[in-house]
């Protein structure tokens, strides 16, 4: 059986949407397989929440189609779609207690009392809130409310669950706890989850695949390690994890390929095509030393240093480069180096990523 025909399979084809003259989604294509955890990652205004609302049925796309389990969803209102959503703010029904909040979706379906009680119990166990069944919504903390909101969506046992930045309103500590919980609940339910966030750390920690959004388009769609190690665009490199994106010229030569950064030649992968390029360096793949220049290193002086607990963050200024270079160096002997010191910033050729740059 074709995977997108399975209960949790999703096929999005050529979806466009605009608010007035402003295009918000521009030709989104996306296939999601049953049981997958896919994150829509991007800054605010990139269209990720709009796509989620299109899938939920709150917005009709101006073009394109959404199919869930092989069924066309155009003109199907939200209450008839086989998806459920967890909203950004924990929006519990203020006039109902926790049990009745979770039971809501079952009651409107006409589920029997006994089955409702059983399912509500199951859902509250799943989010570890069984003892709160009789509490009023207003007696819960933000994190507890969001757990109840999750249970309220899960109780309908949707094959596709949509989560719209469900943790963004919570404190960092609660957020980290909830990440662990979300991974567990996803494993236990086995449903397809589409998760919207602007937090790259959350995306890397949770997802099977990440769709990096840029101004209404999917910039890159890959698993977290590929996105991090092999970003397809400077944008993806900059949005997922930290990156130094440095303009350079790749030149073929007798000794293999080199990239010219300002006036310095550095060695790069010999397979690289010559021409203008972006050299992408992760801050943590850089080392800083006071030795001789190496085949891939730049001479720079330290402008700032900050202690991060496990590492030092350096800001370095290299001759001829407009931007500062960011480097993360593990705490150890010799660190921190003094501000103003002249150093060699070097890296392993394998850890450098070269992407073509338009003239």
């Amino acid at each position, binding site marked *: 059986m074709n995977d997108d025909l399975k209960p949790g399979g999703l096929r999005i084809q050529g979806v466009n949407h605009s608010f007035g003259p402003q295009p918000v989604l521009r030709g989104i294509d996306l296939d999601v397989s049953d049981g997958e955890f896919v994150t829509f990652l991007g800054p605010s205004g990139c269209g990720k929440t709009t796509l989620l609302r299109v899938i939920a049925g709150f917005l009709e796309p101006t073009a394109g189609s959404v199919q869930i389990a092989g069924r066309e969803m155009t003109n199907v*209102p939200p*209450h008839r779609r086989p*998806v459920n959503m967890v909203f950004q703010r924990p*929006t519990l029904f*203020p006039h109902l207690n926790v049990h009745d909040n979770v039971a809501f979706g079952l009651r*409107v379906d006409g589920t029997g009392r006994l089955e409702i009680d059983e399912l509500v119990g199951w859902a509250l166990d799943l989010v570890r809130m069984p003892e709160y069944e009789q509490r009023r919504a207003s007696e819960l903390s*933000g994190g507890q409310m969001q757990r109840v909101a999750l249970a309220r969506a899960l109780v309908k046992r949707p094959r596709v669950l949509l989560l719209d930045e469900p943790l963004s*309103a919570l404190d960092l500590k609660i957020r980290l706890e909830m990440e662990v919980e979300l991974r567990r609940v996803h494993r236990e339910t086995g449903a397809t989850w589409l998760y919207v966030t602007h937090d790259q750390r959350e995306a890397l920690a949770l997802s099977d695949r990440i769709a990096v959004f840029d101004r209404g388009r999917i910039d890159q769609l890959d698993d977290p390690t590929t996105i991090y190690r092999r970003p397809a665009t400077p944008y993806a490199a900059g949005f997922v994890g930290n990156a130094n994106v440095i303009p350079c010229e790749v030149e073929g030569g007798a000794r293999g390929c080199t990239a010219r950064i300002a006036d310095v030649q550095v060695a790069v992968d010999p397979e690289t095509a010559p021409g203008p390029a972006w050299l992408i360096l992760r801050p943590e793949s850089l080392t800083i030393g006071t030795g001789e220049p190496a085949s891939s290193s730049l001479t720079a002086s330290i402008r700032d240093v900050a202690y991060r607990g496990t590492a030092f963050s350096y800001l370095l200024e290299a001759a001829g480069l407009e931007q500062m270079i960011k480097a993360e160096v593990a705490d150890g002997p010799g660190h921190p180096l003094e501000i103003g010191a002249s150093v060699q910033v070097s890296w392993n050729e394998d850890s450098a990523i070269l992407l073509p740059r338009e003239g």
Partner: protein
Amino acid sequence: MGDLIRRRGLASGVVVGATLLFLFVPLAVVVLFSFHSSGGLTFPFEGFSVRWYEEVFADETFSEALVNSLLLGLITSAVTVIAGTAAAYGVARSDSRIRGGLRLLFLAPVLLPGLLIGAALLTFFARFQFDRSLLTVLIGHVVFAFPFVFLLVQTALERLDLTIEDVARDLGAGPWMVFKRVTLPQIAPVLAGAAALAFMLSFDEFLITFFVIGNEQTLPVYIFGRLGRTVDPGINVASTLLLAGTALVWVVAAVATLRAARNDRAADRMEVEV
């Protein structure tokens, strides 16, 4: 400095006291003389008796007027709450361009003097040979009370968090179910308050009623008519009963409003804790 505040406190105390005095002393006097043992309406007060209550209740015209007023109040309340809620829901949830215009139109009768509404309705009924009766009074009361109910309900609806309705739709509730299970319960206290207000507005409405009433009587019309015939504590009895009815409903409305305010605070807390 402290002296000034104390003096200011004293001054405002005097103003508040005087205001309350002028508001409530006449009412107290009316109630007091409804229990007068003699027929006089001026001091000295000669003694307590319920003879005027007996007299008034023995008057069939009065009983009819009282029943009419109660019925009119209840029906006006029911009609305006249903129509007002429907209109307010339509306006609050519409994204049409005529939304603002509709809102003004629904509220307009508030700005019209009762005299004008009464005269206009009278002309209208006469023009279409619509006999004056309690039905025409009911129409008048609905026209009069509708905008108040509309305003209350519309304000309550605008305050609701629309995301909650999205949540309900997402959980499988169709439009009617969303209204019944999510919107309605949240505005229920306001509806109770609006119903009480509509009842009160109708129960002691005189001006419009006087224009469009036929041979029947309502309580205010009865009191007015009786004033023209005799001056005795019977008037005070009828007025006291009118006052008691209004005050009772006012208490109901106040309780309902307090409950609504408490719900709002709970909802606000939810916002803050996020």
